[in-house]
């Protein structure tokens, strides 16, 4: 699988944070970790940096399979505030809160942005 080019030179268009996605969203992970996101995000919302905590979150997300180029799909949502979400990451299912999912930037497949 070809690695996704995510040069920090210019903002990637059309990407959304996984935590903002709705059930049915399908796409490819283009960036993981709030530090990577702060270079990429266009709306400034993801611009934050919290050193130690974010580095730890990034490694945990990577270890459980959220890595650039991984296929993701939001399968289920919780009842209250549609949180947490259950995500299919390639061949495995992972439950996580939207807050943590916001550290993952996804390029949605056309027509698979999920329920509005």
């Amino acid at each position, binding site marked *: 699988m070809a690695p996704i080019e995510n040069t920090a030179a210019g903002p990637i268009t059309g990407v959304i944070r996984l935590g903002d996605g709705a059930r049915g969203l399908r796409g490819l992970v283009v960036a993981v970790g709030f530090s990577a996101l702060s270079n990429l995000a266009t709306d400034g919302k993801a611009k934050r940096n919290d050193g130690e905590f974010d580095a730890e979150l990034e*490694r945990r997300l990577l270890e459980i399979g959220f890595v650039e180029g991984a296929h993701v799909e939001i399968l289920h949502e919780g009842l209250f505030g549609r949180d947490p979400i259950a995500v299919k990451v390639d*061949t495995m299912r*992972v*439950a*996580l809160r939207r807050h*943590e999912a916001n550290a993952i930037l996804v390029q949605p497949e056309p027509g698979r942005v999920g329920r509005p």
Partner: protein
Amino acid sequence: MNVSVPTLPSLRLALVGNPNCGKTALFNALTGSRQKVANYPGVTVERKEGNFVSPIGRPVVAIDLPGTYSLRGRSPDEVVTRDAILGRLEGDQRPDMLVCVADATNLRIMLRLVLELRNAGIPMLLALNMMDIARYRGITIDVDGLSAELGIPVITTVAVSPDGTQALLQQIDAMANAGLASTEPHWHALDASEVRDAHHLADRLVDRFVSHPANDRDWTRRIDRILLNPAGGLLILLAVLFLVFQAVFSWATLPMEWISAGFDWLAQTVSAILPAGLLSSLITDGVITGVGSVLVFLPQIIILFFFIILLEDFGYMARAAFLMDRIVGGAGLHGRSFIPLLSSFACAIPGIMATRVIENRRQRLATIMVAPLMTCSARIPVYTLIISAFIPNRQVWGMVNLQGLVMFSLYAAGIVSAFAVALVFRTFVWRGKSEPFIMELPGYKRPLVRSVLLGVVQRAIIFLKRAGTIILSMMILIWFLSTFPAPPEGATGPAIHYSFAGIIGHALQPLLAPIGFNWQIAVALIPGLAAREVAVGALATVYAIGGDASGSALSQTLSAQWSLATALSLLAWYVFAPQCASTLGVVRRETNSWRWPVAMFVYMMVLAYIASFVVYQSAIALGG
């Protein structure tokens, strides 16, 4: 003597893999019931070791290491896995061989770990477990290709089938015969970019050697559509819990009666044989009655753990954590706190033991601290006694039984206060970021009866060991307090008046007067520290009511002697008070420090006093 077969040197192998890869099922298949469960020194991580003999007669010691996604060691479990593999574990030999266990339907994450494990310097092989499910779903794996590329033997296993471990056993022999030579580990903690690189390497391996069918017969997805439905899923969870509790409380009734009858019989027999005196009193009142009053919960604990392990093996517990995360998360707890809190409705001891699944120390401690607020079954005899003595058995609002309503309110008070206390911890003690909730939702699997029963037996043994050590010593201490010093010559009241418990009770009485407790209650609370329901028997002793302590005689005496305000105050006391020395002992054990049991005792005592004060004074003001 015929020494024809030379004894082969024994081999130590360790099973390592991701959580949910079927590692423990494989371990059970290899070792059967020849397992030893203990703790690693200094930490509350379970150490599982078992023995088996390989096909050519080689004795093998297998260790089931805690599941992990990396060797980084975030939680105590993961630190044990890392240290065992790197030979850093005190008193534990480095294994001769690693068996990396992978879920064949989800190879990618384990391949990443295998790449990291190659730096450990121990000969290893890769077992593709759950191969039956992979075949059913049409997933094909080029085993030889993968083996050649990784440079280690790769075999397939089906832990749940009788001959599903043959290839593994043969491979272990083959590797041992060829000679196993470990080298110095050259592992270092991977940084984020190294993890990324390893993932991409693992992805390329999966692309080359694994093929997924276009039409995957994946049952998990279909089952999840029902069980994780936002509203329906919660209703199903509630229904499951309802059934579990029905089972815990109704199935356990009969065996509990047998156990308590058995202990009564034992106490009577012993007191008939032994001459009356201190020894007889120690054995019957202290040891037998005391331990019996805790062991009587064994049936409930066994039934509860049967369902918990069954649901865990099926894959449902991770779903329960998912469904409950938002609800318990509101109080700063973790989705995984849910199961320990649930267990605490039977008894806080298994509940506190079950907090080991929570990786984050703070959230684990918060869960431990609030677990005793859940209404355990030892409170039921106390609640029942007071409710039947003071609350009229009549209908209110047309259809609700008043006694039942009071009972329900006591349960609700426990739950609400547990959430409130957790929130206070979150807001004032452990401020800052909440621990991320990131958890794998494993594929559903048919639970294996043998595995479930093995797990239940291991839990029961752990509980019995606790009863034999911590609980027994607490019982003896409380017996001592209730027995010494002996009453003076010509004393008229019950002996407990003159004991340390009596002295402490009398001394405490002025302190307890504002919450409406008389000296009899104060004295009964001391032996009641052994276990909550012991207070019922102690009240009978103090009021010198012989015979059947749980019968109506005590109930009538109490309703004649106490005001309603006192009764309500005592109910409020029992919602909060740390009236269980065994729980405090287990907290000490699980946290490896006196700090937490002391903190628990103090905060629960303060809450109990405030609650009883408010209840008593309001009841008096309202004319109670």
